């Protein structure tokens, strides 16, 4: 079954709307850039919500997955679910950015956010190496700019430069891998590559080299060890709302493309080529992230190392190469999205009020602002995998999938790491609830929009931990679509 041009255009309606939204923001940036408070963030979030609505109206996947635009994109449940994840993440990020004085009046910041979301959405949809490379760069280049957008702050500039240099290197490595894959198979269409490689009788060593190069590029995007060096510095230096977006949506986009490439290129019989590599990445990420997080004194760095460890847990789900594993990974990404967005929102808010991101600034937070301390508690317990929060089911699903497909040792390593992780999450909670605050002035939230975004995220974290069925249904639906 093929689609007409009109149908194909409707199928990418959310992406087209994002381009229009970016255009509107450009025009605003020309006309007026001083007289604004929260208008820009609201316009961006509103546009994102409009795109979500249009996705439901026009871009619903058909019963059978369909390739469109000459095999470049695929209309299926994966595209649909991940698009919603990115749009939601971007809308919430836009709302949180409204409260950061230095960036809330800069239309170009929101424009970059929109373009980056557009790239991520195409990353999840692309089924062709050319399109995939273009989408990855469309998602990444705006992120470099967003990380370095505070040009008057040393740390932000440094974060942007570091992110750019590491990112450029990793995409160059990945595209070299793509060029080898093209040479071996004679095609760039993901679905034809496996056959092409068999027809050309390429030696296994060549395939392994290409896979390693491509995996290295993806490992950078999802900040898995040993390609994680950029993450702590970039997370610390970038504006906090950008950090939230980077650690969630960007990571989810990397995983979407990675899962797509691995699932299509290798069937169940040839999965051993990459399973051991992914398992090694998972173990390295979990241990590096959790062990290095323990001595950290800066909350953003601590969350950065925690996010490296989380990438490890998600990779455990991938290693099992089963529908359960992949849907566990997608569930994990959804739970992680809302959890980390909420956590970084609080971290950013407290950073602005106290002027510090160090753990010492959180001493006695429960006495200064019981509400925020509770919100922080929910987020950290969800990251630690404690019921009744989303992180619990997420961990349960990925470890369960690993055991089911014979990777029991990997699940055990994962559980050990969860315990290590819990240690430093609880340490932050101890600082917040037991330690005496340095000063006793109560902290009051005066930004209603920001509060709505935060509460929305926290409600979702809790709902995902209490009601499993609908969320698992969504992630399972997406996992079948690969």
């Amino acid at each position: 079954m093929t689609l007409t041009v009109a149908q194909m255009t409707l199928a990418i309606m959310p992406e087209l709307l994002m381009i229009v939204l970016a255009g509107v923001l450009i025009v605003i940036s020309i006309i007026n850039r001083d007289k604004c408070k929260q208008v820009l963030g609201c316009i961006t979030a509103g546009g994102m919500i409009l795109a979500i609505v249009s996705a439901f109206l026009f871009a619903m996947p058909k019963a059978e997955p369909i390739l469109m635009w000459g095999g470049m994109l695929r209309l299926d449940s994966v595209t649909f679910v991940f698009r919603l994840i990115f749009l939601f993440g971007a809308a919430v990020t836009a709302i949180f950015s409204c409260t950061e004085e230095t960036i809330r009046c800069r239309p170009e910041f929101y424009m970059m956010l929109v373009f980056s979301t557009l790239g991520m959405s195409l990353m999840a949809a692309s089924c062709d190496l050319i399109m995939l490379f273009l989408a990855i760069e469309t998602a990444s280049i705006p992120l470099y700019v967003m990380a370095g957008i505070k040009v008057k702050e040393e740390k932000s500039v440094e974060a942007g430069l570091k992110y750019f240099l590491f990112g450029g290197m990793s995409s160059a490595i990945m595209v070299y891998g793509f060029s080898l894959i093209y040479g071996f198979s004679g095609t760039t269409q993901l679905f034809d590559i496996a056959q092409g490689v068999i027809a050309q009788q390429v030696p296994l060593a060549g395939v392994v080299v290409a896979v390693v190069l491509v995996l290295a590029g993806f490992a950078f995007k999802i900040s898995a060890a040993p390609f994680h060096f950029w993450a702590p510095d970039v997370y610390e230096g970038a504006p906090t709302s950008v950090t939230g977006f980077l650690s969630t949506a960007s990571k989810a986009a990397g995983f979407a493309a990675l899962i797509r490439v691995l699932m299509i290129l290798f069937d169940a019989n040839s999965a051993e080529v990459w399973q051991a590599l992914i398992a090694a990445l998972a173990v390295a990420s979990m241990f590096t992230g959790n062990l290095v997080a323990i001595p950290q004194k800066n909350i953003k760095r601590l969350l950065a190392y925690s996010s490296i460890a989380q990438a490890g847990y998600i990779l455990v789900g991938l290693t099992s190469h089963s529908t359960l594993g992949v849907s566990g990974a997608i569930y994990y990404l959804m739970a992680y999205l809302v959890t980390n967005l909420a956590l970084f929102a609080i971290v950013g808010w407290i950073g602005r009020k106290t002027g510090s991101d160090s753990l010492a600034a959180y001493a006695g937070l429960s006495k200064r602002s019981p509400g925020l301390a509770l919100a922080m508690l929910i987020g950290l317990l969800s990251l630690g995998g404690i019921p009744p929060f989303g992180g619990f089911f997420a961990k349960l699903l990925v470890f369960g999938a690993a055991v089911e497909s014979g990777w029991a040792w990997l699940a055990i390593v994962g559980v050990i790491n969860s315990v290590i992780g819990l240690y430093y999450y609880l340490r932050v909670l101890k600082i917040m609830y037991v330690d005496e605050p340095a000063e006793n002035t109560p902290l009051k939230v005066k930004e209603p929009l920001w509060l709505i975004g935060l509460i929305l995220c926290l409600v979702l974290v809790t709902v995902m931990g209490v009601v499993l069925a609908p969320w698992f249904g969504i992630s399972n639906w997406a996992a079948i679509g690969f």
Partner: protein
Amino acid sequence: MIPLYWYLLLAALIFCIGLFGVITRRNSVGILISIELMLNAANINLLAFWRYLYAETGDLRGQVFVIIIFVVAAAEAAVGLAMIISAYRQKQTVVANEIDTMKG
């Protein structure tokens, strides 16, 4: 005619020089140049494969891929140079080792 392997070797060599440069160079502009070298290695690979193996079929994917890489490399260089200038304004240096406020 020069065999395909020579082109592939050349590309691999340029890729390794680029990777070595990224790892060892301390100047941000030097690292940027090395990244461009790596991208061009991929371009040589793509064009050589296309010309030797797949040109007769009339399939243009190899060439299209190269053009897309050109465009992306240009965009990346533009953004990268802007970031380097903004770092230079802050620190009066483009040496990556001296831009190290954050550690740990």
